[in-house]
């Protein structure tokens, strides 16, 4: 089963996604794919909070800041996977350290393809994304390419997902399918 979870910042997406992924695992392996590359104390603090939230839940954490398919080499595909988040994954792929953080636009299509393939390769997958599309800002071209790219990934995942959830203030709106 594939579930896409989207919503605004601090809306409760990660908590809900964790519960869904854990529920889907039915006591089997449950992997947390951590995608954020911490850049400063703010990132570290947020990561620490997420780690604390997951304590005792039984997740196996795998660090994967790019090339999501590499996770498949060393895990049980019959397990349940939580990818948190496509937002960070695309950021890492689009502005790779190896290119001095210069934009690699080919990363959008690659990232979209790999995430869809990943989701279809495992038994259960919950993917968290961020809804960053309804504000009144006029962004620069680079930011628009990123927003457009992430939206394309969201839409591709939504089209193959069994369930699509929008989270707002910790509450769920079902946009597609049913809750497991």
């Amino acid at each position: 089963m594939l579930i896409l979870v989207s919503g605004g910042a601090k809306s409760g997406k990660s908590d809900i996604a964790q519960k869904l992924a854990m529920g889907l695992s039915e006591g089997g392996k449950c992997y947390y794919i951590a995608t954020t590359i911490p850049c400063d104390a703010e990132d570290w603090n947020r990561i620490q909070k997420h780690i604390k939230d997951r304590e005792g839940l039984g997740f196996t954490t795998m660090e994967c800041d790019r090339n999501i398919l590499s996770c498949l080499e060393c895990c049980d595909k019959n397990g349940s996977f939580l990818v948190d988040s496509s937002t960070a994954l695309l950021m890492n792929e689009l502005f790779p350290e190896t290119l001095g953080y210069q934009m690699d636009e080919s990363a959008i299509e690659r990232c979209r393809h790999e995430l869809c393939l990943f989701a279809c390769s495992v038994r259960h997958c919950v993917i968290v994304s961020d809804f960053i599309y309804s504000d009144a800002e006029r962004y620069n071209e680079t930011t628009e390419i990123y927003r457009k790219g992430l939206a394309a990934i969201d839409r591709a995942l939504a089209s193959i997902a069994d369930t699509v959830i929008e989270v707002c203030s910790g509450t769920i709106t079902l946009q597609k399918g049913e809750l497991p």
Partner: protein
Amino acid sequence: MILIIGGAYQGKLEFARMNFSLTDQDIFTCTDTEIDFSKQCINGLENFTYACLRASIDPIEYFKKNSDSWKQSILICRDISSGVVPMSSDMRLWRQLNGRLCQYLSQHALKVSRIFCGLEQRLK
């Protein structure tokens, strides 16, 4: 009239194309304060409200003045209502004009759909 709203890049126009069998010839994309209502589908109303802001035109009054022209239209507008209050007064005013126009249009719409990740959420 059918109103389609949603965030940027959510697939609003694609949804309209698919569901109403639109071709490029049926679509007018707003770039300034004039709208070609002879086209079945009016896309990018947020560009129209932004142009109205620059030209000190009330977008609702414009629609009222042309009320006989869009009763059968498919209108598409980006939702720009969320996020923090913009620092720029222009952006704040744009958000207000756009939001008020969407409220006005949704009152007069037979159907209102919000597109989220390419999926339709029927609001009316």
